[in-house]
Structure formats: C-alpha cells, structure tokens
C-alpha cells in the first residue's frame, strides 16, 4: 500500500514545494513603508530604511472608508454601496469594542481595498502576502498574526464570502484567540453577504 499518497494531495504538495525552491521577489516596500515601527526587522533587508517622505496629515476621522471595488463586493454599486458601507462601519465599531482593534482594513481577492483606515494602508502588502501564503486550495482559509511593533499585532483573517475571499487586517494589541477569530470570520461573512430578497 502506498504509505503517503492516499493521505495528501500530491499535486498540491509538489506545487508548494516548487514555490519554495523559487526565488521570492523582494517586497517592493521598505521596512518603513511596510508599516512596521522601529522594533520590526521582519524583512531580510539589513539596509536601513530610507527616511520616510513627508506625508500629508491624516484626516481627523479615525476610519476613512474608500470606494469599494465594484465587481468584487458590490455587483450593483449604486444599490449596494451605501448599505454595505454601513454594515462595515458597524463591523468596525464591533471590532473596536470587542477586541480593542485600533485599525482595520479589508482587501478583496485581487488585493483591492474595500475599506481602509488611513494610517494602515502600508500594511496591505504584508496582509495580502500572508493571506496568500496561508491558503491552500480545497481547505478553509486560516488566520495569521504577526507582531508589527511594541504592543501591536496585525491579525490577518481571510474570510470566504459570496464574493470570494476577503482579507481582513486588524491591528490589535495581541493575537486573537481561536474563538475570537471564528467570531470575526462569521461576522465579516455576514456583513459581506448579499442582501436577501424579502
């Protein structure tokens, strides 16, 4: 009897292995641009990060929703945009209340921004890369967390929805426990669900 192959997807394993043997494109962002503070040395580059260019002052509102990409989440932007953003705002408030999230963004399956908080746009690259690296076809998406600075952790939670996989990035004090991750996944899936006919 074959001791291995009945237990795993050989094609998928081979694809993952081949991906590991290929050189990885260096991230097109510096450590600073990736959104980490001075404590983070995650990327392999030992070069000091160039001084950050001056950035315009952030708008006063802590969260600034951006226009959702039409096909990914809102099939009919005119009809769905308002209610969807309302639901996202409620979700953000809930994340803040329940898990002390100080920032949040949501990307669609193409990496386009559905919702963002102005201060954390630089974490998108990391979040999407982690989410992509954590996914395997045929399995449910898994969460990943990475410490991004003193007392701040980026929790990356891929969530399967009717519109494909959304990537939630939440800036929290420490990694969320599994039960909390499940609750967040369920909540975001509900938020992103298309309106039901009444």
């Amino acid at each position, binding site marked *: 009897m*074959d*001791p*291995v*192959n009945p*237990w*795993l*997807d*050989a094609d*998928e*394993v*081979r694809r*993952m*292995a*081949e*991906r*590991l*043997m290929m050189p*990885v*494109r*260096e*991230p097109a962002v510096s450590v600073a641009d990736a959104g980490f503070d001075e*404590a*983070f*040395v*995650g*990327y*392999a580059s030992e070069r000091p990060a160039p001084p950050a260019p001056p950035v315009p002052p952030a708008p006063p509102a802590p969260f600034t929703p951006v226009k959702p990409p039409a096909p990914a989440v809102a099939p009919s932007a005119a009809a769905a945009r308002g209610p969807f953003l309302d639901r996202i705002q409620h979700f953000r408030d809930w994340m803040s209340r329940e898990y002390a999230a100080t920032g949040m963004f949501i990307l669609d399956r193409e990496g386009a921004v559905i919702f963002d908080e102005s201060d954390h746009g630089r974490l998108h690259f*990391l979040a999407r*890369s*982690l989410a992509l*690296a*954590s996914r*395997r076809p045929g399995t449910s998406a898994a969460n*990943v*967390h*990475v*410490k*991004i600075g003193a007392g701040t*952790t980026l929790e990356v939670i891929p969530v399967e929805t009717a519109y494909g996989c959304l990537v939630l990035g939440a800036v929290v004090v*420490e*990694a969320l426990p599994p039960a909390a991750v499940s609750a967040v996944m369920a909540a975001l899936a509900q938020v992103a669900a298309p309106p039901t006919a009444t």
Partner: protein
Amino acid sequence: MINIAVSSQKGGVGKTTVSINLAHAFARAGVRTLLVDADPQGSVGLSLTRQSRLLTGFYDYLQDPGIPMDRLIVPTRLETFSLVASGQASDYEAGGGMGAHLARVRAFLRGADARGFDLCIIDTAAGLFGVTSDVIASSEAVMIPQQAEPLGIRSVPKLLEGLNRLRVLNPRLSVLGVCLTMVQQDLAESTEAAAALRQLLPPEMVFKTQIPRDGLFVRASARGLPVGVLDDGAGAQLVFDSLRAEIEAKLEPSDAAHATFG
C-alpha cells in the same frame, strides 16, 4: 556568517542529532561553527554538556537584553566548535506569535557574527510558530529533518505551507531541503515512506544523504559527544560529512559571503 535553522513540523524526527553532528562535521572541516539550542527542551545542551541547566543561554538572551553575548558561548575541545545552550529561561512561555521575538533573534545572530563565526546552526523546537518562526525568518537557510515513516511524511503539506508563509517575512530564506532520518533499510514501511517522499517532492528538495537509525547515536548522546568522536563512529561521521558537502554545494552559488565554506 551563514545561519541555518534546523526545523520540522513534527517532533522526534532527529533535529537535535542532525544539528549536533552536522555542526561537528562543519567544525572538523575548519568552519568556525556555533551550535545554538533554540529548543526549550534543551536537547543540545542535555546531549553535550552535563551542566547545561546551569548555563545562561539563548532564551535568557531573548528575555533579558542586558545579558552579554560572551556569557552565552560555551567553547568545546574542538577549537572551531562552540555552543549556546537553551538556558535557564527556556521553560518560559515561548509563544507570542510570529514576529514577537524577531528583533532579539536578529540581535543574537548579529552578535554571533561579530564574534567571528562562519556558520550558526540553530536547533529549533518542533513546529513553525513562536520563536521557531522568528529564527527561520532571521536565517539564510532552513533544513528539515524528516523521519522516514508514513505518519511524519503526512505532515509535509503543513510544513511546506508554513515555510511559504515564513518566506513572506524573509524572502531570502533558502530551503536547503528535507533530510530523511532514522531510515531503517530492514523495515519495509521505512524504505517505502522514504521512497514516497522522494517521489512526492522535487529531487533538489530532498537531500541525497539519509541518516540511518543507529544505536551509535544513542550511545554518543549518552556520553555527551558527537557520534564522529566515538571509536566506532567513523562510518556515521562519513554520513554527516556527506550531508555537509551537499549543504556547501547548495549554499555556494555566487554570493561571495559564502566563500568561507570554500
């Protein structure tokens, strides 16, 4: 300095045996080698030093930035071979998720580099999370001992998934490959599992050298020695010399920094 993490998804696959004897093989070849015990179980220290539980070590350094690097390094009778034990703090909660100890691990490796070592081999705890993930995210290369038995090989997909994730944090990480361990030529399940793994993965991802299951390793560990030091250990030493040569060939390409292995 080159850093090689010795890691696996599953425990009990021979990481410590591979780490100790591979480090010894490099040191015998004249490469100034530092073997670091980053497994909270302290297996390297327990194998090679009788007073390992008294030594200040790697986890102490992670916990206390005030500990000088020189206090950690334990010389051996072989001039080119030094150790860092796991340490007193090795039982402390080593979790904290990916990235929690990255800065301290990087500081440790910079300190080792500054002390003139050519190679740092890091024996990690099983699983690709916590401190182990930070060690891999700080290393140039990772090698994966894998016991030649069906159950262990079924954990390979999870291992590959974890390594792909860590390469997001460390795009320069080179995966040296999987090294089959505890191979029993007289046991069909063992040889079949080894053959299945070789069929499953790309050839360049599995070391040609296999580590046999051998009572010599138990005897060497009991005496606190690398296997090559035993009177009848020459054969086993050849196996690790072969593994060393394969690693040197994999690390050689173009980078002038690797010339210390030449």
